[in-house]
């Protein structure tokens, strides 16, 4: 493999990681607080849709990303109402939201964008980091991405600090591990879960928006194509840690980048095995490293 090919592979891995990273970090925070979102896919898909909608009606990518966050948060709001207000199982609500949002966004293509099926918006341009992008090899691979890619990666240390060093982070962890104890310390567990859930929805929405606003520039049916589930797997494979989640995401997007470039690089693995690998390694890791892969104790149990 030539150096150029390697550079392109790394650049693709990092670029593809951004949408997943937004969603996975959101899910990680949410799960640490005890709320599981099997509907992460729905939140991403909603964000991908509302992002294009907002960007095309306002002509601004900033509004577009805000719209994406709002779309994801709206799905989270519905999830919260069903689970926290009406006491339904979080898992069921998530599955149903995936069905519902896939239907709504598909319907929305016709209803909102009308006959203009390839309704497109200008995409987020690459932003070479001044100075760093000039470094041979590294500059091309790491520092010639669009702005939201850098934001996604900066969220990794930010979320680590937020979860482990802030008072609210402690409240989140307490709500996910021992809600009863958290309550006795004066933590409003329900409020904490609402906040992490909405935060997760907004982040997943931005992740979906990243797909459409930074990548394709248009919304197509089921554009997320299961990325929400990969993000879900990354949280588990990353052992509910920000750094681990990032490593998992990068590992998974490396396989995705390999799929795209496999033929060019002369690799002859049937691509289906690359597609299934994130899920397979997650299941295998859960089976082998049970003791070290411990989810938050009260995950998925309504308060």
């Amino acid at each position, binding site marked *: 493999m030539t150096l150029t090919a390697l550079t392109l592979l790394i650049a693709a891995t990092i670029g593809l990681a951004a949408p997943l990273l937004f969603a996975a970090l959101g899910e990680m925070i949410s799960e640490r607080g005890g709320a599981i979102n099997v509907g992460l896919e729905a939140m991403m898909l909603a964000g991908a849709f509302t992002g294009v909608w907002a960007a095309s009606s306002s002509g601004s990518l900033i509004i577009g990303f805000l719209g994406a966050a709002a779309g994801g948060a709206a799905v989270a709001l519905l999830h919260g109402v069903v689970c926290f207000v009406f006491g339904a199982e979080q898992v069921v609500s998530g599955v149903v939201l995936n069905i519902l949002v896939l239907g*709504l966004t598909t319907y929305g*293509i016709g*209803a909102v964008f009308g006959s203009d099926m390839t309704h497109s918006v200008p995409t987020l341009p690459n932003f070479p980091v001044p100075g760093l992008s000039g470094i041979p090899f590294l500059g091309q691979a790491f520092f010639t991405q669009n702005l939201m890619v850098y934001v996604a990666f900066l969220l990794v240390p930010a979320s680590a600090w937020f979860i482990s060093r802030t008072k609210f982070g402690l409240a989140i962890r307490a709500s996910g591990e021992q809600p009863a104890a958290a309550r006795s310390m004066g933590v409003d567990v329900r409020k904490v879960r609402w906040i992490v859930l909405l935060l997760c929805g907004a982040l997943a929405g931005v992740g979906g928006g990243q797909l459409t606003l930074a990548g394709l520039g248009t919304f197509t049916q089921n554009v997320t194509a299961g990325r929400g589930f990969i993000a879900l797997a990354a949280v588990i494979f990353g052992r509910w840690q920000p750094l681990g989640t990032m490593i998992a995401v990068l590992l998974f997007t490396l396989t995705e980048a390999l799929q795209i470039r496999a033929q060019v690089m002369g690799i002859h693995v049937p691509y289906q095995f690359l597609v299934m690998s994130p899920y397979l390694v997650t299941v295998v890791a859960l089976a082998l490293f049970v003791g070290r892969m411990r989810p938050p104790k009260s995950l*998925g149990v309504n308060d």
Partner: protein
Amino acid sequence: MLTRIVTAYSPRFHGVAISVAAIVLAFATASVLLLAGGVNPIVAYVGMAKAAFGSLFAISVTVNKSLPRLLPALGIALSLRAGLWNIGAEGQLYIGAVACAAVALFVPPPAFPFGVLLALAAAAAAGAVWAAIPGVLRAFRGVSEVITSLMLVYVGIQVANYLIEGPWLVPHSTFPATRMFGSAFRLPILMSGTLLNAGVIVALVAAYAFHFITSRTMFGLWLRAVGGNERASRVIGLPVPWITVAAMAAGGAFAGLGGAVEILGVRGRLLESFSPGYGFQAIAIALLGRLTPTGIVASALVFGALEAGGAGLQVTSVGMSSSVAAIIEGLAVIYLLAGLGLVDAVQRRRAAKAELGKQQLPAAASVPRHDNGAGS
């Protein structure tokens, strides 16, 4: 660890009413969306009803479309009796389809019923094995079956894709598929002039088997014991880990049959993405059917009619017609969940009042908190 999420959907509240109300409300909400999209909802629904029930042929299409949803829904309901969430029925369905295709493609065709029966058995067995993996991990490693069964969906789909695009691909096909199966391995058409095939018999037998297992066998009792109170079941000496594995495997067998019925009855060959999420919709159907066989059959027919009817929907774009069905399905379950929550709250309040009246004490504190868990 996810604690065993025991269902709050006990047979105590069989309320057909709540499911019906949820579906009606879902149609009402969807009409607002249709109006917003410039479609007259009444015209749309009449068109859907015609496409779903307008003729014997239409009805047979509706029935066919309900079968691959009905069978996994029975499986999900069975596992749920033991408090296990089999979210991965979609994967079991694909693996079941792969297994029956393997039989149909590579076994020399035997005399009439045996070929089909062998293919069905292979599908059930494969689905059972695929579902047993999360069961074993749950029972012996304490890993949540929710996550593992979900992850295995995508592994299963890719296994199918690999075979379809690779070794089993029929040459000169315009889309990835295997060759057509021989007639020995097809579920025969039951009524000429319609598409009604013997898959409907498979489904009815399965629904009866579900009823029989849950209400007439020791295994059914064990399922409920484990689902109701895992700790107590352990204490009285039930082999809880093996019951867990068996509950998942049995559920997976139903899901595998769902894939087989679609492949052997309708498609006649294995092709990519043949399921638009039957296994996920089945979760909704199991809940709307309140985990009872009759309820599940009825809900599956509603979902089948929605998909068959979608074809009769005159809307601006192709994707929109199928999306209306998905929207109604999703909304119906959201309303159902909300309705169940409301009923639960009302009942708790009543129980609290009754308690107060009985004891003449300020005993509201003794009313157990609803924890979304056991004993409801």
